[in-house]
């Protein structure tokens, strides 16, 4: 068992500096994830971090665990294989909004449906950052992107609702402004034995903010501060006041049987009193 006394040990310091632009929100989310791992006391040897492809998914390269940087959209499938093969491992998935909600959307809903014990943290920067600013399923209607030069005609997912409806047993949303909340949600996600999904709303000043004249990084953070409303507070607010706001906090927490546990129970049942294999 390797619990860590120093959070620095959770980073591959020799891989720094990172590739992210100045003002990018990715570092804040990675820090929140590491803090949650640290405070949850996870065994470093038994924790695996899996990511897809995108700016955000490069995070695994800087984290000092068994780490797996996979293919665009497919992180959850690799994570499913790891978790099912070795249920004793803690498996955390880091993914972008394009990675998770577009090319990987099918894997997201099916992993949620199985309620397999993965912790998926979706970095939502409202854009395809790595490829230079094309719109994603999380780019708000009307926004500019290189592939929506006249304004985005499409609508976004409410990805938290999608995860919940698909069967996730824990769902939360926070932002890179509300870091303590983000850490707490990720800790709860880790604690939850089942599929947990946390949407971390981020900022991409370079490929998104600039094109949409949203200002620099501090300005974008300020926007998050002003437009996020905690779900508990929202319950007491007039709908009128919530019109241009979005909700953060614990969005859903339910009970459901976890997939790898069911599978282990099946194995135990089949092996109990089963005749020795006489092929």
């Amino acid at each position, binding site marked *: 068992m390797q619990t860590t006394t120093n959070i620095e040990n959770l980073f591959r310091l020799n891989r720094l500096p990172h590739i992210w632009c100045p003002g990018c929100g990715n570092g804040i989310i990675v820090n929140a994830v590491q803090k949650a791992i640290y405070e949850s006391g996870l065994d470093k040897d038994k924790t695996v971090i899996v990511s897809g492809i995108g700016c955000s998914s490069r995070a695994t390269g800087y984290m000092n665990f068994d780490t797996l940087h*996979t293919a665009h959209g497919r992180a959850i499938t690799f994570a499913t*294989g*790891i978790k099912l093969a070795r249920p004793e491992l803690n498996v955390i998935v880091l993914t972008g909004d394009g990675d998770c909600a577009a090319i990987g959307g099918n894997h997201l809903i099916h992993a949620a449906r199985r309620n397999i014990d993965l912790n998926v943290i979706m970095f939502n920067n409202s854009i395809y950052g790595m490829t230079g600013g094309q719109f994603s399923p999380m780019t708000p209607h009307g926004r500019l992107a290189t592939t929506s030069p006249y304004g985005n005609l499409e609508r976004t997912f409410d990805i938290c609702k999608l995860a919940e409806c698909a069967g996730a047993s824990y769902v939360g949303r926070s932002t890179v402004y509300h870091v303590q909340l983000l850490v707490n949600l990720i800790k709860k996600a880790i604690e939850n034995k089942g599929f947990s999904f946390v949407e971390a709303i981020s900022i991409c000043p370079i490929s998104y903010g600039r094109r949409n004249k949203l200002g620099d990084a501090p300005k974008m953070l300020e926007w998050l501060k002003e437009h996020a409303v905690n779900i508990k507070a929202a319950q007491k607010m007039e709908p009128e006041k919530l019109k241009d706001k979005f909700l953060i906090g614990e969005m859903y927490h339910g009970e459901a049987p976890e997939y790898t546990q069911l599978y282990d129970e099946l*194995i135990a049942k089949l092996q109990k009193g089963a005749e020795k294999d006489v092929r």
Partner: protein
Amino acid sequence: MKTKRNAQLLQGNQACSLGALDAGVRFYAGYPITPSTEIAEFMAEELPKVGGKFIQMEDEIAGIGAVVGAALTGTKALTATSGPGFSLMQEIIGFAAMTEVPCVIVNVQRMGPSTGGPTSPAQADIMQARWGTHGDHPVIALSPGSVLEAYTLTIKAVNFSEKYRVPVIFLLDEVIGHLREKVVLPELNELEIIDRKRPTVSPEQYKPYAVDESGIPAMADFGQGYHWHVTGLNHDETGGPTGKADVINQQLSRLFHKLDQYRDEITLYQTFDVEDAEYLLISFGCSTRSSLAAVELLRNEGIKVGLLQLQTIWPFPDHVIKDFTKNKKGVFVVEMNDGQLCLEVERTIGNRDLLSRINKINGELITPQEIIDKVKEVAL
């Protein structure tokens, strides 16, 4: 005395599944598709009994993704599919080749392109097995010609994937996959089972892609404290991404050529009546069987024909082809496609005039008579 392994009637797909279990495969993830589905059904039933895991994923991309994930934890893992699913898997087969994660992909070939003939046989994924994913890369592909071979070669496939850390493509075809034959499987204790080489150094000293003279790096299981990084990006010995041209060149050269020194071990084939043969048939998979029947009938008529059955398709056994085609009056490549293997034979022997193609692309088997007619056309 009752032996464990009595004669039994087995289907090719079942034999492949049994071979996988006996080789130590304990993880299966995939998506159902004819004519491979019996493998998934077998695995769903048998794996949990031996403590293994089966999962039906939402598509074939997810299937191969889960297989690679499981393989990284030290578990031997396999998936099975057919043409359309094999096409979907290509990106992650390349990921497995690049990151050197052992896994086996069974492709029970059916007619293509596209949906083609879901229940009709073909042998037309030869080139896709080699070059289906983008970029240069190493790969091994084996193809069985009988139910017994479906068993024994699956064990080889798993062993090769473990020993050389490559994805191995197991090219069954609809005929062999669905064929039922009486077989007597070898005793379990007669089998050679190979496990991947694991690091003997401490995590601090571990360099995931550093090699000794074997050219194959030692692989730590996830969850053992080695804290290594796996990426499909160009990477250096430490596994971390790199943009340095000389390091990339060195790593990729090793990767692309890591099978070269093992060519003899990897090359599997059988010969029939080749000693005095003046004419040679070259075939594989189900077409081996028609070829063998044709050899017998032609010999009855005094025409000296032999057969070379390739069990290893990739890496292409140039040296074997060269040896057996030497001094022949004619060489015939028998395959259910438009002449894919023939391209490689042509490249190898460099003499087009010596070569004839015997192909069929309508979903029906090549008959012995069709082979006989073609050979006679040339020989008489």
